[in-house]
């Protein structure tokens, strides 16, 4: 199946000379949730802004469902909904008026039933006649999502969608994103909250200094780069590692009271051999626990590694 979004050799150099994007190429499959991760200033918003038509690319091409965003910009933009990072809304308009405006702007005839459905999905129906300036920050964020969904887009860009929103609203948004995906909408989100990507994304891209340094299926990424640790709480503290255990990737912690074994999740963990060697060396333990690195740990490692 051809990608719904195809970015080829995209570069952006701002008038100030800042090289925000460097030869980016990326394909997004129809119906997937793609999380674009990166530190501040990495180029996430520039990339989204180019695809949506807000920023002009210096080089390269972008196709949305086969349509060039420059030559066939109308067809391309019709397919896209954008929820920007900043809470940029009209203060004096009502919720209903601003969503109806967005639908018209994207070239669709009025459809009160669709708008009602969208506002109900976002728990905004009761606020439909309220002026936006009277709403809380979280409600304004929902209004931005309602505006982006007013024209029934096939691709939805969420630029830091849950920045500054409370836990309940985050959960609501995650549910909404999954429901949209179930309806066939492709979701591309940027986020600082790695747990958000871990929770929702099918694939993860990491961007740093304007370069995509990794694109990987999330599960595969966690399998390949994820690490597990087994911590043994020793019966008696050790002053140092016995030579018999030198073959294992072990570290002493907590002043010799804990023994930490780190292993990757791909091959044989070597636990049987380790336990046998511990028994042979006469090292007993009172308790044990395991932990697995999160996507956040992987992300931090990746960004540090390439710095």
């Amino acid at each position: 199946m051809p990608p719904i979004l195809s970015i080829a050799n995209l570069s952006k150099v701002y008038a100030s000379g800042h090289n925000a994007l460097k030869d980016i190429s990326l394909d997004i499959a129809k119906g997937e949730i793609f999380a674009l991760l990166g530190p501040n200033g990495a180029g996430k918003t520039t990339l989204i802004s180019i695809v949506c038509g807000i920023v002009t690319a210096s080089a390269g091409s972008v196709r949305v469902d086969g349509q060039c965003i420059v030559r066939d910009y109308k067809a391309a933009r019709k397919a896209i909904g954008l929820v920007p990072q900043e809470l940029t809304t009209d203060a004096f308009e009502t919720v209903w008026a601003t969503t109806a405006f967005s639908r018209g702007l994207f070239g669709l005839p009025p459809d009160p039933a669709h708008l009602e459905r969208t506002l109900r999905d976002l728990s905004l129906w009761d606020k439909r006649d309220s002026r936006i300036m009277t709403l809380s920050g979280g409600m304004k964020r929902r209004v931005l999502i309602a505006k982006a969904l007013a024209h029934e887009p096939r691709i939805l860009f969420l630029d830091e969608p849950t920045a500054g929103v409370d836990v309940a609203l985050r959960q609501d948004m995650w549910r909404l994103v999954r429901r949209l995906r179930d309806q066939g909408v492709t979701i591309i989100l940027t986020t600082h909250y790695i747990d958000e990507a871990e929770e929702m994304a099918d694939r993860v891209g990491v961007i740093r200094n304007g370069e995509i340094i990794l694109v990987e299926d999330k599960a595969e990424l966690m399998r390949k780069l994820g690490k597990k640790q087994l911590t043994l709480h020793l019966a008696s503290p050790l002053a140092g590692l016995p030579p018999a255990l030198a073959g294992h990737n072990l570290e002493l912690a907590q002043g010799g009271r804990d023994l930490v074994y780190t292993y990757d999740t791909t091959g044989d963990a070597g636990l049987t051999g380790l336990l046998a060697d511990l028994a042979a060396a006469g090292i007993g333990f009172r308790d044990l626990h395991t932990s697995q690195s999160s996507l956040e740990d992987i992300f931090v490692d990746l960004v540090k590694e390439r710095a």
Partner: protein
Amino acid sequence: MNWYAVRALYRFEMARFWRTALQSIVAPVIATSLYFVVFGAAIGARMTAVEGVPYGAFIVPGLMMLSLLTQSIANASFGIYFPRFAGTIYEILSAPVSPLEIVLGYVGAAASKAILIALIILATATLFVPITIAHPFAMVGFLVLTAVTFSLFGFLIGLWADGFERLQLVPLLVITPLTFLGGSFYSIDMLPPVWRTLSLANPVVYLISGFRWAFFGHSDVGIGVSVAMSLVFLVLCLAGVTWIFRTGYRLKS
């Protein structure tokens, strides 16, 4: 053509006008009434008729033109500047709308508002002085042409401005003086020859002169020259707007 977008932009801008109806409608009515009190009753009573037209009636086209120019510029410049200032411009830039459609929506609404206010001023003026319009179709034509041209000019100012101060700069320091010196309240034939010649460099003279011709059948400069100058200014504004959208100046990084 994305007519739904044009309609959405037009309605959005007109909604702002109706939201501030008191300020939008009552203010020009009061201002016009004050002009008639000062220029009509207090000063006008001591003035003879100008080119056979009572002074009170003579200033009506100038008053309408004064409001038409300032309102066209103010509405169009604010209309496009405010989304840039507030950041909501992202939605316009990311929508499937062409520059022509954006201009139709914003300039159409700004021109409509200015024409509405000019007609309110005309209606208010009829309460003070008897008005007859010699060429009503030409009057409407001039009204629309001037409103569209100066709304385009206002749109350019709104795109150029990078702050509220700049937004006010051109209307306050250029347009208002040119309008007052362009024969709003007098015929340039009343001026000494040197000032009359200098006045011909003021583009507003041609607009007011043409508009006055539509009311009273005579003008300071030939009607053909007035129409030609108005069209030249319209073309210049169109060229400016086209260039801005082509280059993305002040709109896109």
